[in-house]
């Protein structure tokens, strides 16, 4: 029975790490602009689909990955220039609709370019699972978890230690003051979307061997990534990872022990439960209303 628990746990960690990686993309953009990018799932899809495409035309894996990152960053920057920047001081609802419009556009483009079939990507180090305590762990999910941790540390260092990082956080909290202090808000926005697009692409080709790649793969991933980021407290990289793991593990445990039919419903009930008791997420900063 313990092996079964371990297997559920490992599955939860695998899925949780995926949601964490996607959730991190939300965090970076939120940190810089208080915008929730509902096209984040599509960044992941673009990373996966372009990597699959480059591999299919014969490129070696590392080259394909690099090109996938470059393409997704380019699209992220284009999204800022064409959609986000012109609507800078729009309301939350309007910005949500703009990023949803962008996600529909990117999905449409992917279908025109790469068709609607589903594809897979070779995992980094093979498909045969590692047996731990009778439960199977995929090397690929260890790669995903490892890179999620690595990225969190890099982000923590970037946002807390480097000047540009602090500039991003500063311009999120008080754009006017940041501008007065000489921070170029447009550059910060471009940088944050570029960073988040890169992260999305990395997540894309890390996730593809497990979730496969098809134009609408980004919808559910984006949704669960948003859950991870909110559960952990928007803007907190460590929170996004923990939020992702909590969502992933609760889904796996529900599927295993309660009812696989209501797996997703339970995950959302947990999220609602957390939000009701901590309205700004587990580790979100609880700002008091400044009057």
């Amino acid at each position: 029975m313990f092996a079964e628990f371990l297997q559920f746990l490992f599955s939860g960690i695998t899925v949780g790490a995926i949601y964490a990686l996607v959730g991190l993309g939300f965090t970076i953009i939120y940190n810089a602009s208080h915008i929730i990018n509902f096209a984040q799932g599509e960044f992941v899809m673009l990373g996966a689909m372009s990597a699959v495409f480059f591999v299919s035309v014969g490129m070696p894996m590392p080259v394909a990955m690099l090109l996938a990152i470059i393409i997704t960053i380019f699209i992220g920057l284009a999204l800022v220039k064409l959609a986000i920047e012109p609507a800078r001081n729009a309301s939350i609802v309007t910005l949500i609709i703009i990023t949803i419009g962008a996600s529909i556009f990117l999905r449409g483009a992917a279908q025109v370019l790469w068709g609607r079939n589903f594809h897979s990507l070779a995992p980094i180090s093979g498909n045969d699972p590692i047996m731990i305590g009778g439960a199977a762990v995929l090397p690929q999910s260890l790669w995903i978890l490892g890179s999620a941790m690595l990225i969190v540390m890099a982000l923590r260092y970037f946002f807390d230690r480097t000047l540009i990082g602090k500039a991003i956080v500063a311009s999120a909290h008080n754009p006017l003051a940041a501008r007065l202090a000489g921070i170029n808000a447009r550059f910060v926005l471009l940088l944050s979307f570029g960073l988040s697009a890169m992260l999305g692409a990395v997540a894309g080709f890390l996730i593809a061997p497990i979730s496969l790649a098809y134009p609408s793969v980004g919808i559910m991933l984006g949704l669960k990534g948003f859950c991870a980021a909110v559960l952990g407290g928007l803007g907190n990289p460590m929170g996004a990872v923990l939020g992702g793991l909590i969502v992933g593990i609760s889904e796996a445990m529900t599927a295993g022990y309660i009812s696989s039919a209501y797996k997703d419903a339970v995950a959302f009930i947990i999220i609602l439960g957390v939000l009701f008791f901590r309205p700004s997420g587990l580790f979100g900063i609880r700002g008091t209303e400044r009057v």
Partner: protein
Amino acid sequence: MKQGFIRHFTTVAAVMALGLGASVSGAKAAETIKIGSFLAVTGGASFLGDPEKKTLEMYVEKINAEGGVLGRKLELIIYDSQGSPKKAVPFAKRLISDDKVDVLLAGSTSGATMAVIPIVEAAGIPYISFGGAGVIVNPVKKWVFKTPHTDTLAVRKIFNDMKKNGLTKVGLLSGSGGFDKSCRKQTLALAGPSGMTMVADETHGKGDTDMTPQITKIKNTPGIQAFMYCGFGAATSIVAKNFKQLGVSVPHYQTHGSASMSFIKNAEGGAEGVRLPAAALIVVDALPDSHPQKKVASAYRDMYTSKSGDSVSTFGGHAYDGLMIVVEAIKRAGSTNKEAVRAEIEKTRNYIGADGIYNMSPKDHLGLDEESFVMVEVRNGTWKMLK
């Protein structure tokens, strides 16, 4: 004071008229035979709609190149319902009353088909659906036919094969889509009468990326002898991969929803040994030359792979058979009169199609039996026909 009224009137009316006026499509040449279609070309069920759309387009083009039907060109109108019944209903009404099509070849999903049936029956237009569920033609509806095998046929074929190998305790996993749930319902219904016992019944959600919890639970069910999965699209490969990773030893069955090369290629070896019922089309190379479908199936396979560049799937086959049955019916009826064409479709006898040999009748608007299915197994990366 009047100003306010006029201003409001112009704003609301202008927008409404602009919207509706623009959608009056252009005048139509009188003599073309119009075939109307709405398919799940994009969205969750695009794995069904995409090959269906390509098949219809390439064969209408081919038929028109060869002079059309009864000397009249075929005109194909396809709308993308994205697999949602909510979008399918307006498109069906548009095809019937606005585009005034002669026949409907549409509905990639059972949900979309069921939503449109009341409209088709009221309008009285021959309708061939590509939806999988048996309920589409059971009870029989006057104007509604279908070409895809019903999940009842698939489940019965699977159960026969299991019984042949002495497997009676089955663990079932199914997705949350229409095809998946209908297949699950048939499996649970037919288990008892076929002498099988379902020892597990697990579900996974749309867009899930990992099914190991459910498969682990099924693997550890005491007394389990066979694993069966109801679903289609990317999930089929993920389930096969997880199945292999978890080292599950019992035989692995799936349905005709997985009968495509994409399933094998993307399962990265996980598909090895999977058994499923498939149309002859899928294993056309393995068919003996004497097999009646050999010629038709290989012709369709060659045409589809060359024109679309994708590997062939049974879903494309549904569209091919549907189109050909309608074309034959129109030729036999000698006109596009709806009542006459309907009667001819119903009289389709011994029609050799890509997905099987159709014998329709007033009581059977599908005309396929278990013989149209061939049990296949995945061996070193390709389909092997089982006797």
